[in-house]
């Protein structure tokens, strides 16, 4: 292969820049550069999920998988179906992460509902705390990301996540997880799962935007995060969350 001197300088220059300033967020997430108008310090991202609105169609799982190239058998987002019979242990299922939705239940004697799950983008994230090299971190705009050029693949973060949101990418051999579609939200778009939800059960929110509907939702609804006793400062809030959900 012939490499011109010009190419050599280009590659060398890039390597020098990477070495001196570290990889940028765009390189980490594989995203196009964010628009010039985007200022990380102006945002603090999260999500509102309305349990009563979710119909368990699995659109979000399919959209996420296709948008982010999620390997088969692993999930950046998934949907669980809870069926709770009085006085009994809840029956929970998530066949293939609900990639194809659920078979309809005919049982009338149980309380049944769907719970979409994803990384909670915790502000006090246990996964960030335990990473031995700081490859996983909270971005200035509140998104928990993994630098795949730096991750050792030790999987301590997978153990530390209370919500089961992380996995080892079988090809990359680095840890992978929901990026809250960072490549989209930094360009003014919403996440693939929110975009494809037919009932609006998922809503990307920006806590730093005073005009964001999140403020009204939090003010006028009973909301809860998953496993609040873990004190992770999760930023995925659930409307109408049943106490049985784990």
């Amino acid at each position: 292969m012939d490499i011109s001197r010009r190419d050599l300088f280009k590659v060398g220059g890039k390597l020098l820049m990477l070495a001196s300033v570290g990889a940028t967020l765009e390189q980490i997430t594989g995203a196009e550069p964010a628009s010039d108008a985007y200022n990380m310090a102006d945002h603090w991202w999260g999500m509102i999920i309305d349990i009563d609105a979710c119909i368990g169609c699995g659109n979000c799982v399919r959209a996420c998988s296709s948008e982010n190239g999620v390997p088969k058998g692993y999930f950046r987002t998934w949907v669980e179906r809870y069926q709770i019979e009085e006085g009994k242990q809840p029956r929970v299922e998530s066949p293939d992460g609900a990639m194809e939705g659920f078979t309809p239940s005919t049982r009338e004697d149980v309380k049944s509902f769907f719970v979409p799950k994803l990384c909670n983008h915790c502000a006090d994230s246990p996964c960030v705390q335990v990473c031995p090299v700081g490859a996983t971190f909270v971005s200035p705009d509140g998104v928990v990301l993994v630098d795949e050029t730096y991750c050792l693949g030790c999987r301590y973060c997978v153990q530390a996540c209370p919500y089961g949101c992380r996995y080892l990418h079988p090809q990359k051999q680095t840890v992978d997880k929901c990026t809250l579609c960072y490549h989209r939200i930094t360009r003014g778009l919403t996440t693939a799962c929110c975009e494809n939800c037919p009932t609006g059960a998922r809503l990307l929110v920006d806590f730093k935007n005073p005009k964001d509907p999140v403020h009204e939702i939090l003010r006028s609804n009973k909301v809860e995060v998953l496993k609040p006793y873990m004190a992770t400062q999760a930023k995925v809030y659930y409307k109408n969350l049943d106490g049985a959900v784990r």
Partner: protein
Amino acid sequence: MIPGVDGFMYPNEVELQWSVLIVLYPYITGLVAGAFILASLERVFKVDAVRPTYRLALLTALAFLLVAPLPLQLHLGHPERSLEMYLTPHTSSAMAMFGFVYLWYLTVVLLLEIWLEYRAEIVGLAQTTTGITRFIYRALTLGSYDVSPEARRIDDKVGYAVTVIGIPSAFLLHGYVGFIFGSVKANPWWSTPLMPIVFLFSAMVSGIAAVMVLYVVSSKLRKVAIDMRCLDTIARYLFYTFVIDFTLEMLDLVHRTYEADESFRSLDFMVHTRLWFSQVILQIILGTLIPLALLAANQLWRFTEGRRKAMYMTAGGLTLIGIFAMRWNVVIGGQLFSKSFLGYTTYKMEMVTREGLLPAIALMVLPFVIFLVLIKLLPPWQEGKARQA
């Protein structure tokens, strides 16, 4: 239904992340810490009876310590990046900080103590041997050839100081391994402040048992008489540490059972099903109660020499199996249940893959190979030799 899964697991939880290699890691580190603490009994606490095992214990500790990082290295998705833990450590990570604890222990404590202990002999060998052996010993002298009584006195003083520093370092080394697990709040099977102290005492138990077994086996192979005063003393210390270790583990069990928090039903079910053999049969009955009974019997009654040796060897062997089972139950057991507490998965050990059974066996054999090289290079046999003042 997913094969091997009962109930509900979060979809990403079905696959276990930490394999048998991560079981080896605390097991091997525990042997290091335990062996060193046995060595320090003679050096610092003046338990003269265990003198014949002093050097043996140090070399055992070194052989295992050199292998300790290998299972981790083999387990990493990107082993070529492992040096980043030293170059750009994330200070809030227990795992990152362990790298420094390990380096401190290896270089400042163990290598230094062994070098000081053997220095005079290394100098002697550097002057009497020839060829490649001479080259090795000359390198090991590090250019220091002064073995005058004054120099030896300084060696001994510094060696003593290093051992004194070494005891808390050994505690730190293995207590810290316990902290790596005990600090994971997402996992109730691991998350307990007792974890570092349980790991520490189980480390002492396994290290003392390993040196005891190695002492008997090496004496048999060399066809020299076993110093029964030494063996009885090691067995007594093994008994004491084992009682503390067992008490701590039972305290943990009683506490969990009595408190019976949200995770209890799930963990209790796991112990009664998937962990029944490794926890109840191997760890508690075979690996703890039987060796404890054998060691306790020797504190109560006097047996013949032959019977004592047999009892100690049985107790030592079972203890080593029991502590391995304990590490297995912590590492593998901690991943068999869902963090939703609604289901269980299965660990399918692979055979010849990178994290399979074969590499695990190789990694357990390797310390013994290193140990053989070490005793060839630095003979630890001390028959009839008292410590020089």
